[in-house]
């Protein structure tokens, strides 16, 4: 059923009795053309595009828990394409363009709000680095604006410009950046994929891969063996577990990143703002909660929770930027597991095993990439060739040295 105000009113008159299931609750078939492991944003988007853009016949998504329960359901929802490097920027800009039509494409309101994102800078050197990035964005067809202090004040009046330890000099703004409703993205893709015939199987955990003569045959699961011509893996936080089943290791470390939401407030912050003198970002959800986060805890972790020193440090950065936060309250904190790649950029590539494809290494930036990640992963699986905006995101870059190191920290994942 098409979602619209008309169907909503019609259903309201009937007591909402006839809404179809948003996706089917089903058991797997014995064999598929493509199996995707991971019912998160990237896996669901991949399945959606495989089914709708590449006419792949039988596609299944296997989710070990509930769909949308990974990082798509626990991130701070920021969408942007403000990257410096040529390996990244075309990909993220492609993603942003997909975001711009996503609500209509999926017939599901993902509440993509282009409220703008501002990266504050606090020194000449930082400004120059942002200018280099802003020009790179413009050359790649994205948008960028350099704000002076007045500009920051206009867009983000709650930011303390003067009394701070690191006074704000200005900001690099991407007006087309913003936020989206994270769960809706997972659900919208799931519904779209389901309607296109994709089997989404929840509570189906992959326990092993069946590989014969270097070619993938399928997966062992708690629901039995499921055959697959091709297998795509999009399991942020667990990539190394799956790669180990195929006998290879990845340039990935799993780290925990905490996120926070405040109590609900009347409109307080209208854009996304990031701090330049520490790691901190904040926006306000449509429901009123301030959504914020900062640095990784800094140690390898598979636990979806962090520790107090990081909590305190994130809040210190927040209050340094917006002193009025002091009197407000943090409502909830949680952690997500990030596949931190060794150069801070993602991997969408084939693997040493025929028919096995990996989508990983999103660090803490996977949410904004969801549409393009799905698009490019589907392209790769369908064509056995990288999509033109994802040619840099290959595994061999670590061997050749074609790094995509936005932060310049080198092979130290907890610093990216």
């Amino acid at each position, binding site marked *: 059923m098409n979602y619209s105000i008309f169907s909503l009113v019609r259903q309201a008159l009937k007591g909402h009795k006839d809404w179809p299931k948003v996706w089917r609750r089903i058991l797997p078939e014995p064999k598929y053309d493509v199996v995707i492991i991971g019912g998160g944003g990237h896996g669901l988007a991949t399945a959606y595009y495989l089914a709708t853009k590449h006419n792949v016949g039988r596609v299944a998504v296997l989710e070990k828990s509930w769909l949308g329960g990974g990082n798509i359901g626990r991130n701070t929802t920021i969408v942007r394409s403000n990257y410096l490097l040529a390996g990244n920027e075309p990909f993220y800009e492609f993603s942003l363009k997909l975001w711009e039509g996503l609500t209509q494409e999926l017939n599901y309101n993902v509440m993509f709000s282009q409220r703008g994102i501002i990266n504050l800078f*606090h020194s000449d050197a930082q400004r120059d*680095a942002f200018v280099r990035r802003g020009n790179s964005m413009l050359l790649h067809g994205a948008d960028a604006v350099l704000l002076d202090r007045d500009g920051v004040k206009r867009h983000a009046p709650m930011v303390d410009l003067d009394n701070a330890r690191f006074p704000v000099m200005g900001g690099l703004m991407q007006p087309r950046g913003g936020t989206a409703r994270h769960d809706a993205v997972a659900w919208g893709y799931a519904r779209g994929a389901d309607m296109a015939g994709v089997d989404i199987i929840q509570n189906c955990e992959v326990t092993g891969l069946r590989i014969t003569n270097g070619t993938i045959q399928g997966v062992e699961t708690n629901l039995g063996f499921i055959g697959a011509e091709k297998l795509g893996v999009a399991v942020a936080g667990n990539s190394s577990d799956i790669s180990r089943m195929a006998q290879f290791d990845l340039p990935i470390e799993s780290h925990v990143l905490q996120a926070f939401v405040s109590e609900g407030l009347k409109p307080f912050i209208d854009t996304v703002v990031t701090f330049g003198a520490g790691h901190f970002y904040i926006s306000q959800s449509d429901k*009123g909660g301030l959504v914020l986060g900062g640095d990784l805890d800094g140690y390898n972790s598979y636990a979806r929770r962090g520790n107090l020193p990081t909590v*305190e440090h994130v809040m210190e950065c927040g209050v340094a930027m917006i002193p009025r936060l002091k009197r407000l309250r943090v409502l909830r904190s949680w952690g997500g597991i990030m596949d931190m790649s060794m150069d801070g950029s993602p991997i969408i590539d084939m693997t040493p095993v025929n028919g096995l494809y990996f989508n990983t290494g999103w660090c803490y930036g996977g949410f904004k990439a969801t549409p393009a990640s799905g698009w490019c992963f589907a392209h790769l699986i369908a064509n056995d060739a990288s999509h033109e905006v994802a040619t840099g995101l290959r595994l061999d870059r670590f061997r050749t040295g074609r790094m995509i190191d936005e932060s310049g920290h*080198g092979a130290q994942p907890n610093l990216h």
Partner: protein
Amino acid sequence: MTESQPFRNAAGGLVDREQKFGFRFDGKSYGGFAGDTLASALLANGVRLVGRSFKYHRPRGILTAGSEEPNALVELRVGGRREPNSRATVVELFHGLEASSQNRWPSLDYDLLSVNSLFSPIFVAGFYYKTFKWPPSFWEPVYERIIRRAAGLGRAALEHDPDHYEKAHAHCDVLVIGAGPAGLMAGLAAGRAGARVIIANEGPTLGGALLGENISVDGKPGSEWVAQLAAEFEALDNVQIMPRTTIFGRYDGGVYGAVEHVSDHVVVPSPHNARQRLWRIYSKQAVLAGGATERGIVFAGNDRPGVMHAQAARTYANRYAVRAGERAVVFGSTDDVYRTAHDLAEAGIEVAAIVDARSGTPERNARFETFRGYVVSRALGGRAVRAAEVRKSGDDYALEQIPCDLICVAGGWTPNIQIATHLGQRPAYDEDKACFLMPHETGGLHIAGSAAGHWGTDACLKSGTEKGAAAAGSCGFEAATPGTDEVEEGPYGNLVPLYRVKSKLGKAFVDLQNDVTDKDVALAVSEGYDSAEHTKRYTTLGMATDQGKTGNINGAAVMAEALGEPIAEVGITTARPPYTPVSFGALVGHSVGKHFSPYRLTPMHEWHEDRGATFIETGLWLRAQFYPKSGDSDWLDAAKREVKATRSSVGICDVSTLGKIDIQGPDAAELLNRLYINGWLKLAVGKARYGLMLREDGFVMDDGTTSRLSENHYVMTTTTANAGGVMSHIEFCHQVLWPQLDVQYVSVTEQWAQMAVAGPRSREVLQGVIEDTDLSNEAFPFMAAREVSLLGGVRGRLFRISFSGELAYELAVPADYGMAAWQAIMTAGAAHNIAPYGLEALSIMRVEKGHPAGPELDGRTTAGDLGLGRMMSQRKEFIGRVMAGRPALVEEDRPRLVGLKPVNAEERPYAGAHLLPEDVEHTASNDQGWVSSTAFSPSLGQWIGIGFIKDGQKRAGEQLIAAEFLRGSQVKVEVVDPVFVDPKGEKLHA
């Protein structure tokens, strides 16, 4: 103003009638007593409508008497202290308190957005996902704007919070969380055993439920028994009681986070006192005795002001001597209904009826009309309850409407186990007790009392004793079991679970704060959002400021019913820290404003300040940017003047911020040889050398000069920004990779003041200061590095190195002599008009010389990119050598360092500009490189830059556009050699 409290009894309760407090709510004055909460005082004054709901703006009253309150959220205080979403049920009353209701317009009584209720058939769960999609351009400016304004509850303050916050750490053997019957006994058992105990009490006074219930222990009223216990605690030095302290989170290794509400119960904190204090409590063992939260029953109109949890109504009556209504109906499915009716009647509330959903239970109290096997199917009324509609359980038609203004609901208990789940443990549904409990105790956290599913006070006391003794025992303290006291209390328990009364009419709320109805939950399930997490997210159930403390269990029950699965299968969503919301202020403590981060100041900082220098942040350092003089029109004038003075005569610059690492030992040279890309084994004593180090991945990490002061003694300098990183790197390389090297090293950045003295007259000036060394070119040539004597015997170090390209020296002296040395040089240089120069002038001169600095060492450049590829020794191993040989790192067309000179000398290129050929489309495919640093060169009389361009120096002579689109600048530049001044280095060697 304090005279009339029409719903306050003249006697009874634990409030202090001698201390009268005046307060204001929505601008109206009221009175209350010390010992009140804002909620009890409002009820005492007959104020029952206190807020409007989130979505439908329905009138809401006070539901509970504790921190689980979902309804009675107010804006507390005014101005910079305004605090939205404050729970009136835990706000201690103080004289002068000001509060106002929130999320209503124009007033609490008449809220225009209550029309939302009319559209409720459309505003169902998830409606916004299905609509607001057309036209697409309307989303941000129209739909989202309206949604955002309607959403949210309270308003953030417009001014800065004037209060301050602190942090503290505490260590103990046993942390007891909660000071009710179980917590007190746990603390007592552990305390008597000799363990160091901390008892964290959410409220201001010990006792928990003993304060609000009609219970006698050991023949005494509960509060008296507690007072007796408090006296014993007072005498136990090893027991610390922390009142007004909420344990909000459990972290790894026995660490608990707590907030102490130091001054939230007074108008303003006393001078120098904090408003709140964040505690990090390190415990060996802990006992969770956080009690249980009563749960309501979902029925139509269960959100009307006047519907209240039974335990809350008892607490208001017993503890605060407040009648929550005049005529009550008590509804429930446990024996608690009988003690409730009893306590209310004792307090003077007319009990119209007891509605006991259970049938076949014995008559407990003939004093009240009792409907057994009946339910309240609907609360009637608008801004207040006016009647309870009662019907036989299972029937569809109502029996009668009982007029009342208070409906007390007793639906059983939800143990407060949140803290026990914070490390990832999952609770399990206990069919017998009809609640979620922790199946295991883990990591030294014991669970006692009603948090462990013990409902009676007697059982809670026993369980507390047992767990307290066990916790102390685990820390090695033998605990004798305290004697058990005789408990008398009203009937409780015998729960027959009833989660929801179905009704066709009216809205029945599962989550009151987020306005989630039973129908919303059912709709979510029917649409296929059928895992607990999906339902939660789709309906927003449990996502309000109470994290579903009252609503989650009923939500799970309604879901279970819709799915036809047991509650145990459906499960419950995860509780996350904090247990109750925590202010940002407490988490931040003193790290506010300028105290966010420390300042690092050089030994000569005051001198710069006295000369009116402006400062620039580099890392945590403040470095002098320039020294303004009258006549300068801007910073550039000052910088030009400083450059000219230096290049024509002599200048002095504070370079103390450079990282300095002292390296000693027989293997010091070998260590350097492995760290740097160039060779170090042949550096002579008394010589300095420029070095470049790579990361293991082959990219440049840092550069600087290192000098050999004696046979086994070297001093390394690093860039200011990388000083810490290089030090850790050296430690790693030695301790982890090459522990066999006999070498010691220590960071001495702070121990040495360092100053660059540069310019053709620098030798003369320094010779006037240095006492024991001939500085002639022959005796002290370029790259000489030696210990020298100055200031009457102070041992310093003099290096003949140059960043400016001039004849130059860097002098290092122990930090305490920095100022004296600086002043001595200024005095000696006066005859030559010595000029201090700041970072701007330094930067100009280094760009003129094409020296790479921060913008060039951005972590992505190779030695080759910087034009230093030839430094890489082919005859030795060093960190990064192998990976630096990877194909992409040695490609010919990598962007490499070049000089850039505007063709039109009047024009200024910007750092960050990209380099594009002329007359091409402005796209990334035409991008040739970027400008990394620019400066106005007084020597050339024009702006110049350095940057990176594909193929680098091969393109010398080519003209490109330096395009900075953000500021609308396009400057034609010519690719030139990056060394603009003295390319042969004659000045250096002069």
